[in-house]
């Protein structure tokens, strides 16, 4: 059995086990949930350490046939693209389980749903089979709706639930149609992603087929990732969600669509991807500039974080749209960094909401005095969100900009404004309103996160941002060889015959090295300044 099966299996098994635990054994339920997410987190760290970068093919693979007549099998494995995502997902799941102390009613159901969600999403990232890829994502998605609908907060809870369910179901189902069409068009009768890619390399899909499947995947996945103009569910949904749900969804589950684009759409539909990328680049300006602007006007901290999280998706799309090694590598780095960041900010805002009962920024203020730990963590998270060097987000964003500059200079020039100016503006303003200034009297007795268990999730997420921010090679060394494969597959088929492709590959290898150098130079040079 592969270590990946254990990583995804423990939470699911624990969810099953919790069904039989009586609901008044609250400590047992919590302990099971925390343990069942701690084990995958530890295993994911072990897997991340054991992963050998640059090996051809997948590692920790396991394959069990499931429906042979359709070519569906349970197939898991990691390469550089998903090894970091699984590590991030497992850590965030553990942090979310730790932060679930805020849930006071119907705990049993909540933890069951949380575990199903964690297991489903970890499995989806590990999956190398199109069917299970979708199946496990859907398994993780549905609990999100229930959790927001039942444990959500605020007056607009029902509306938010309604909207997020509608948007995400439609997005997922559009992507499903695209995936089925992809399977049928390839004609090899297998859902196995490596086999499909292998087949598509030799005989690519007809351009007409690519041209209608790619938009299905782009917009289906795009809706799941809150691509502008399909983003309006995200701030509202996250504003209404209980914080563990928002952490898992904004941090991990949302990356599914991006991962799907990189893993499936780019290598299998290279021609169409090439045609659509300029369009995507302009759309992501909508995320970066428009949603950034919207974020500036928010009065509620959670809506601000939600909008900023949507804005960050724009950078990832820009990295993907650049279709070169540096851009795609950067996109994957931001996916991981943003996962930690989104989880951290939602966890912190959840703590503040729990203590004060409001997140309206005009009513808060001076909280840093009462909550030194939470306040400091929130400030660091905000700075990471603005792209301060030393945090993993900076590495990703700067890599994406380097990658995108060569392809879309105008878009990049505009996007940089979003990254530097707009996000700094709203983040710092929010920090001033929430953390500094006079402390309203009614908050004079707020308790800070005092003991170790309460502090652990925040510390863990911050530490992860730091580690990958200071040592980005931990990620980029693993990502680049496999991103290079994706990029070479996504190179337009018409431009080169086989021999030229081989030369391209060797060139890419050198550019791999170059981009590694860039990725390292990035933070260092900036720090020197």
């Amino acid at each position: 059995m592969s270590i990946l099966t254990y990583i995804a299996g423990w939470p699911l098994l624990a969810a099953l086990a919790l069904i039989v635990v009586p609901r008044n054994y609250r400590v047992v339920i919590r302990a099971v949930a925390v343990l069942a997410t701690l084990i995958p987190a530890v295993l994911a760290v072990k897997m991340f350490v054991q992963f050998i970068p640059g090996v051809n093919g997948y590692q920790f693979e396991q394959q069990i046939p499931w429906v042979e007549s359709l070519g569906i099998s349970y197939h898991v494995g990691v390469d550089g693209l998903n090894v970091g995502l699984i590590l991030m997902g497992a850590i965030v799941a553990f942090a979310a389980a730790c932060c679930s102390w805020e849930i006071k009613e119907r705990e049993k159901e909540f933890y069951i749903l949380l575990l199903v969600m964690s297991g489903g999403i970890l499995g989806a990232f590990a999956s190398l089979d199109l069917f299970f890829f979708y199946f496990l994502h859907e398994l993780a998605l549905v609990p999100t709706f229930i959790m927001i609908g039942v444990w959500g907060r605020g007056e607009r809870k029902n509306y938010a639930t309604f909207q997020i369910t509608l948007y995400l179901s439609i997005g997922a189902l559009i992507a499903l149609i695209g995936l089925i069409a992809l399977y049928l068009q390839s004609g090899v009768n297998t859902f196995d992603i490596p086999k499909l890619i292998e087949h598509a390399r030799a005989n690519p899909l007809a351009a007409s087929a690519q041209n209608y499947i790619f938009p299905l995947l782009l917009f289906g996945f795009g809706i799941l990732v809150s691509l502008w103009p399909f983003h309006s569910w995200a701030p509202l949904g996250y504003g209404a969600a209980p914080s563990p749900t928002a952490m898992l969804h904004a941090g991990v589950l949302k990356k599914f669509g991006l991962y799907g684009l990189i893993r499936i759409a780019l290598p299998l539909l290279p021609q169409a991807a090439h045609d659509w990328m300029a369009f995507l680049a302009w759309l992501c300006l909508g995320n970066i500039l428009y949603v950034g602007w919207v974020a500036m006007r928010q009065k509620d901290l959670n809506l601000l974080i939600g909008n900023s999280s949507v804005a960050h998706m724009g950078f990832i799309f820009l990295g993907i749209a650049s279709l070169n090694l540096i851009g795609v590598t950067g996109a994957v780095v931001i996916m991981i960094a943003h996962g930690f960041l989104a989880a951290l900010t939602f966890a912190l805002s959840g703590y503040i909401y729990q203590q004060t009962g409001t997140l309206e920024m005009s009513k808060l203020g001076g909280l840093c005095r009462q909550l030194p730990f939470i306040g400091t963590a929130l400030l660091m998270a905000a700075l990471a969100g603005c792209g301060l060097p030393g945090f993993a987000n900076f590495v990703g964003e700067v890599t994406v900009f380097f990658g995108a500059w060569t392809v879309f200079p105008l878009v990049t020039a505009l996007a940089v404004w979003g990254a530097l100016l707009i996000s700094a503006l709203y983040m710092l303003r929010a920090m001033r309103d929430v953390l500094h200034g006079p402390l309203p009297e009614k908050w004079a007795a707020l308790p800070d996160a005092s003991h170790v268990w309460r502090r652990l999730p925040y510390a863990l997420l911050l530490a992860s941002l730091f580690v990958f921010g200071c040592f980005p090679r931990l990620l980029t060394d693993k990502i680049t060889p496999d991103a290079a494969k994706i990029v070479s597959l996504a190179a337009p088929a018409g431009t080169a015959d086989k021999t030229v492709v081989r030369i391209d590959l060797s060139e890419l290898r050198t550019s791999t090295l170059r981009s590694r150098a860039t990725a390292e130079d990035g933070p260092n040079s900036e720090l020197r300044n």
Partner: protein
Amino acid sequence: MNSELITLEVCVIALGVVLLLADLFMPPERRRFLGYAAIAALGLLLLTSLSGYGICSQTGTAFSGSFVEDALAVFFKRFFIIAAILVLFMSVEFSDRIATGISEYYSLIIFALSGMLFAASANDFAMLFVSIELITITFYVLTSFQRGRLVSLEAGVKYLILGALSSAFLVFGIALVWGTTGKLNFNELALVASQFAGNKIFLLGVLLVLVGLGFKIAAFPFQIWAPDVYQGAPTPTTAFLAVGSKAAGFVLLLRVLFTAVPSVTAHWANLLIVISGITILYGNLCAIPQRNLKRLLGYSSIAHAGYLLLGVAALAGGVHNSTAGGSALLYYLAGYLFTVLGAFTVICLVMRRLENEDISALAGLNQRSPLLAATLSLAMVSLAGIPPLAGFFGKFLLLKAVIEQGATTPGYYCLAFTALAGVVISLYYYFGVIRAIYWSTDAPDLSPIALSAPAKVSLWICIVGMFWIGLFPSVVLNLATAAAQVLK
């Protein structure tokens, strides 16, 4: 003659007669236990048919080709027997609400079952008509069996009038087909049908036959009876109507469209696409405002007729000569069986003492009986098509079959998107039921619900069925694929 092929049918009819006779020798207070005897007998027949020896082990035709025993027939026969067993479990629990004649109720279910078994093997318009009438007439009685309840009688009368109308269409259509071609046997008809493809009277005949069958499966625009009858009929009858009668309609539809008149069907793909799409939207949209649980399931069953028609429409497309639509349809029906019967069993047990089956009556079910709450929630989740239950993989297969046909006819893509819209709409009302179970604030009655051991057994059969078909689809899918090969 090959008359040993109908051993199963003969056994089932004999069982029905024995039940009627046994009624004479039983003291009234013990008659309800006859239901368990019938369940045991049907269980035995099911095991024999699965064993590969004796019944259902031979294939071939009998009675000058009007009766056919093939993989498709065997698949549906097993399906109908399982449905009847679960409905009988439900009927035993329901017996206290039937003032007189519970053993007649059991034997009428058995007779309806025999009609379904014949329908599965019908290969001739005469056999088709007789089996349909056998099913429909027994259902007239089963629907109005609670003679003391006005709604039950009303449902019976509605079903009688509209059922008689549809039978009239059906028999008129058969007459036109026979009048133009001179054939009743499906295989013989298939050989000559292409010569009559331009004959308007022949086409009208086929169309009228489809109208009659459309009534059985409650497809748009012949769905109008379904909500009223579902709501008024005794719950076990509703369940059998939703599963057995609908499936019988589908097996006959498949036989007529793809065995008898394949050359006509090939031109009617667009008609099937439109009917399927409208049925899905109609069922799902009308289900939204419903407060009565049985009525809600009535509309949901219309929507599911639409989903099943996706498979029929995909078969009619004929790209790659693929039978993916057929196998998807059969697989979906198998999942639908356990899902719907599970839901109706819960309704039957919860609403025991209530006059109206309002959704609000489910409030607090979670505390009253966790098993019932779990079964109903799982059934709703499966109907909505959420992994890992049976409904998800079924919908996946149907969508796959439809998209496969999209290569030639773009209409199939529109159909796939319509189906998606339906799935998204349906999330709303299915989750409404789950919300009522777990999260209603005002529960008037929190007394625990006592469950008899057999009721628990049938609930567990439904739960295991939903999970097994969803998590290990290979077995059922292989059977369904083999059965669908018949339609090539």
